[in-house]
């Protein structure tokens, strides 16, 4: 097992004209489950391919523990076959000419592991993933879910210092995805191998990661634990990317109150913010900022209550254990999660946001204002 350190890594194509990754710095601790999250084309798979050695960064350094895997000079580059890593691709990449058993034992045979040791490891992993009846089949005789398990088994059967998983659940149906997700996390915790997992699915990231690295356009936008990113997004992009449904954003004016505090005002409502936020709002007095409220941070308010937002109900989506209520506030469509047993029946309602959980962002730079 090893920690992974990435120092100032850049990848560019067309002689430096197109930057896929620009100055990436990252530290993944030994045994950590790290998820690279981001929209398509953000550079997360490229970063993983650099860690695997399938791609050489244009600039920067990659270390496994204290061993340099890739550096600015070409002579320091360690090819993938010498990095002792295991990787699962979204396309599974099972060798069509080999049986499941042969697929799983291929890497171990290359490493010249004794035959009885290979058989023992393959059998125990096949049992863990419930694929032992499939060991003598060829990949073309397996279903998508079975192929996925074999691909995972092939990676897990080795004893690598790093696991790299490139959208491994992308081709599975929703039910199987949940099941494999749970198993994968369990096995990773058991084995304690440093793991990097690439996905664009924020649910996978939130549920599996010890450490999320959220990327956009080749840059790390924010990294930290799932809760850190969810509760304290450092910019509007992170706030919007994490959480389903997305955070509701309002353009609000910062207005000074008579009692030395501030309130956030729109044409339809006004929210009184606690004095602890004065320091960060002082520079924005009289200006417009973006106020974000997560759908789960609303509750129904009584008529005449302070800091209440008047809203008109548009539609209600039942989720089973809750309702997603779409309302109109002025010209904005706002969604909130209502967890009571029965959906609100009134057409016109009052919403009260949890003031302590407001997310305030600069409108120009989109950076977070309240720390």
């Amino acid at each position, binding site marked *: 097992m090893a920690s992974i350190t990435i120092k100032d890594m850049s990848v560019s194509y067309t002689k430096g004209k197109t930057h896929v990754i620009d100055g990436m710095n990252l530290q993944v601790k030994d045994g950590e489950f790290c998820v690279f999250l981001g929209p398509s084309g953000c550079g997360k798979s490229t970063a993983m391919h650099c860690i*695997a*050695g*399938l791609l050489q960064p244009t600039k920067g350094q990659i270390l496994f523990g204290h061993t340099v895997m890739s550096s600015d000079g070409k002579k320091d580059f360690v*090819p*993938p*076959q*010498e990095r002792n*890593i*295991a*990787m699962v*691709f979204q*396309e599974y*990449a099972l*060798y*069509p*000419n080999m049986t499941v058993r042969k697929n799983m034992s*291929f*890497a171990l045979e*290359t*490493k010249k592991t004794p035959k009885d040791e290979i058989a023992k490891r393959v059998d125990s992993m096949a049992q863990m993933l419930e694929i032992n009846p499939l060991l003598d089949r060829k990949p*073309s005789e397996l279903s998508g879910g079975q192929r996925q398990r074999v691909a995972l088994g092939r990676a897990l059967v080795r004893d690598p210092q790093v696991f*790299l998983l490139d959208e491994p659940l992308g081709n599975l149906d929703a039910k199987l995805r949940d099941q494999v997700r749970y198993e994968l996390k369990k096995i990773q915790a058991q084995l304690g191998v440093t793991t990097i997992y690439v996905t664009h699915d924020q649910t996978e990231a939130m549920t599996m990661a010890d450490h999320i690295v959220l990327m956009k356009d080749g840059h790390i936008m924010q990294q930290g634990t799932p809760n850190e990113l969810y509760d304290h997004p450092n910019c509007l992009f992170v706030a919007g990317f994490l959480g389903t449904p997305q955070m509701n954003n309002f353009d609000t004016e910062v207005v000074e109150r008579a009692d030395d505090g501030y309130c956030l005002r729109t044409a339809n409502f006004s929210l009184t913010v606690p004095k602890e936020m004065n320091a960060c709002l002082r520079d924005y007095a009289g200006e417009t900022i973006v106020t974000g409220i997560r759908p789960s941070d609303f509750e129904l308010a009584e008529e005449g209550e302070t800091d209440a937002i008047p809203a008109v109900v548009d539609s209600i989506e039942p989720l089973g254990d809750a309702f997603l209520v779409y309302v109109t506030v002025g010209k904005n469509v706002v969604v909130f999660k209502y967890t009571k047993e029965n959906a609100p029946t009134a057409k016109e309602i009052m919403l009260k946001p949890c003031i302590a959980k407001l997310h305030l962002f600069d409108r120009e730079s989109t950076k977070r204002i309240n720390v």
Partner: protein
Amino acid sequence: MERRISIERNKQDQATQTAKIRPRWHTYALHAIYYLLMIVFVVFYMLPFWGTLTTSLKSNSEVMTSNPVAWPQQVTGEGYVSAFEELSGPLLNSVFITLGGAIGSVFLGSICAYALSKWKFKFGNLFFILLVAATYLPYQAILIPLLQTINALNLYDNVLGLILVHSVFGMSMCTVMMRGYYSDVPDVLIKQAMIDGNGPWQIYRKIVLPNTKIATITVFVFQCTSIWNEMLFALVLGGYSSKPATIALNELAGTMAAEYNVQMAGSILLALPVLILYIFMGKYLIRGYMAGAVTAS
């Protein structure tokens, strides 16, 4: 209401389908024309082969008196015996040259194709363009320098010399053909094999070759056929001891002009190995030719 609309739509669909079916007499007439054309083409293409076969089974005297395409009144193998006496040595030479040349060119072409399709390196594309250009090079243009080279290597009138020439000249065509097949092997398999601890050579041996068996067989058969039928290199670079069957057959025509049955038997003997190869490898060849049309799974 919706149901009624859907029933009416079904009726319309049926009416359209019925309208598309032509009257029966028309179909029969078309089929008759198709079959007639097919029979004409088959007869046209098979007639020379039929003439060769019937002549080869006749005695020399019957050849002079009978219709060339008529079945022999008395079937005899004397033509084959005489032809085999003349061609046995050259046929053996042809087998060595063909197998050696085909194995050599397929091996070299396969490695080149693997490197060009799966690995990126400087001037890789330029190298491929030059190889494609080489496939269009007329052999006559390089005969004299080639003869000088073979002489310098002391390989004139030597089976090994012809094997070397066919290996090198076949390589460009093999590379071009195999590059197409290898491009269908998903790159992700190569990446996975690298992650699994394999270097380029091991990946070629354990992943690329086993997954492109049919392509290799196709190109091998293609090479076998062209080397087996080749005459020019054999004429210029091969003397008496390395003479292949194509040259010997030609000499058969020159020295025994009147013995058509022997010449035809020789032709059949020369064509037989290639025919057998196509009959046994036919299904692989069709799959091989089709391989580029579908993605490898």
